[in-house]
């Protein structure tokens, strides 16, 4: 985890119609590190995700992958560079079976020329394998993904990103619509991804979810960065206060208005 950062966004800013959505924000993610991005509504989380995932380009600032300057032309470009984002809508088709969703846009084929076809046998086997640890039974991969629980759907979307070689996973509020048990399942899976050396950016406004799993915490408030903290430097209570913009008594931050 103490390796070199894989993804870096250095002093990035983004304005919309002269309103600064993001000002001089810096975030770095190492392999196997879970970076929690916290902030209340309107703090600039969504804008930062869009910058990291290649949906928008920052007005100023530098993006780096493995130390080299890059510019993401599109989300697919970011994906090619190992940055996979699971947005809240999950990019799944509810009525399609789980295994077809798993390979959406990247279908395995078998056969040759005009007889090339979707290799459903391999797709089913691979999906079953990848989803085994997620409480998705082997038979369930043939059912419409809409019949799975919210936590399972979220986990399938994350597993899909991992399967297709994500180095950095950006998870946008993965637990916001889930109950306690379901959230636990998703966070458990994030832990497994971390153990496999994948860097994770976890966006949330739920400190109880973030604190146990995070290594580093980036707190945004009204488009500015209140700071980047190691878990050892910060208690859960302090993190709660930070999210509300209360910086008094937090180490390393001058008390400014």
């Amino acid at each position, binding site marked *: 985890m103490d390796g070199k950062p894989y993804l870096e966004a250095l002093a990035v800013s983004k304005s919309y119609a002269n309103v600064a959505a993001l000002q001089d924000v810096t975030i770095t993610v190492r392999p196997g590190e879970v970076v929690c991005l916290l902030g209340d509504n309107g703090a600039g989380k969504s804008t930062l995700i869009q910058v990291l995932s290649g949906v928008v380009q920052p007005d100023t600032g530098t993006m780096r992958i493995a130390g080299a300057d890059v510019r993401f032309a599109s989300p697919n470009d970011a994906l090619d560079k190992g940055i996979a984002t699971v947005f809240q809508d999950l990019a799944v088709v509810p009525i399609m079976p789980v295994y077809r969703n798993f390979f959406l846009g990247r*279908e395995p084929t078998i056969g040759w020329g005009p007889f090339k076809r979707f290799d459903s046998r391999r797709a089913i086997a691979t999906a079953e394998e990848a989803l085994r640890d997620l409480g998705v039974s082997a038979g369930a991969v043939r059912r419409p993904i809409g019949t799975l629980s919210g936590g399972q759907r979220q986990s399938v979307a994350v597993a899909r990103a991992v399967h297709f070689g994500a180095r950095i996973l950006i998870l946008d509020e993965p637990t916001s619509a889930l109950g306690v048990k379901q959230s636990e399942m998703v966070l458990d899976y994030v832990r497994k991804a971390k153990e496999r050396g994948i860097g994770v950016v976890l966006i949330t406004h739920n400190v109880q979810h973030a604190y146990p799993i995070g290594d580093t915490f980036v707190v945004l408030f009204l488009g500015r960065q209140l700071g980047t903290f190691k878990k050892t430097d910060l208690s859960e209570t302090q993190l709660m206060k930070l999210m509300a913009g209360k910086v008094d008594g937090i180490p390393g931050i001058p008390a400014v208005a």
Partner: protein
Amino acid sequence: MSASLTSPAGGQDGSRPSLSLRTFLMRPEFTAVVGTIVVFAFFAIFTGSAGFLTVAMTRNYLEVAAEIGIIAAPITLLLVAGEFDLSVGSMVAASEVIISYLTVDAGWSLPAALGAAVVAAAAVGTINGYLVVRTKLPSFIITLAMLFIVRGAAQGVLRMLTGTSTIDGVREAVGAAPSALLFSSTVGPLSISVVWWIAITLLAAWVLDGRVFGNWIYATGGNQAAAVRTGIPVNRVKILLYVAVAVSTTLVAVLDLYAINQGSANAATGREFEVVTAAVIGGALLTGGYGSPIGTLFGALLFGMVDQGFFFTPLPDVWFMTFLGLMLLLAVFINNYTRMQALKPRGRS
């Protein structure tokens, strides 16, 4: 069919779908297959002695079904992709006008005239698709406009060229062209249109469920935002399907030309609704993401049987439309219900 085929608890969690009665009921084809059996039994029992079971009658309703089914198969794929095409009837007429004028009045060979009609149809299909994906307007409106434009053009151009709205004698004009065998011969007691119908249905079913392109069709209609997010070229999918639909109308046109030996600018009026009826009875959803070419085949077969069999019932045939409407409504209710059941959450945690 014993009730023990499926246990109330869901048994193996659907891991053996081939044995589950529930899975069978959830198939999109279910309504159309059962409906076809019921309607066939009905006509066979009550009008069988009047002639419903004769070979001639069978040939008749299969031919009606084939002319609907050949277009309804690609229409099903288009519906699954979430779009609609109301211009197919007028495209049949336009193709008839082009082929019959070029062969009878301009002396072209059948392959050349057919080629010209295919190019024209593909152009209209491309325009349909391009307008739909560029304007993002409902395809209902775009293709309704195209219905009027193409129908009017077929009538207008033919009136300009010949002063009439029909051209007779295509068979005589093309003579015994070898290519005619493809469109005018018979297979046993059946006309060749039935072979085309089944072949095109199987092709559509294979594309939808066997090819990668089929996965893209499902995704485009099932959740376009997700399809775009995962890199599926949704615009290309839609335009290609519009072209496929358009080309299928040319095939129906040439089959029709041989069957009745006349090209008409008024041909296939209302065909656009017949093909959608077949597809919807066959399990397709107008909201996209779901449908089955095999189901549509049975939907077309059902349509053909009712269309021809109704004549034998004691009811005056003016009631045919009402009967058809009620049947469509019933099919939609059943399909909607089974789909809701299929999408009910069954996850345990």
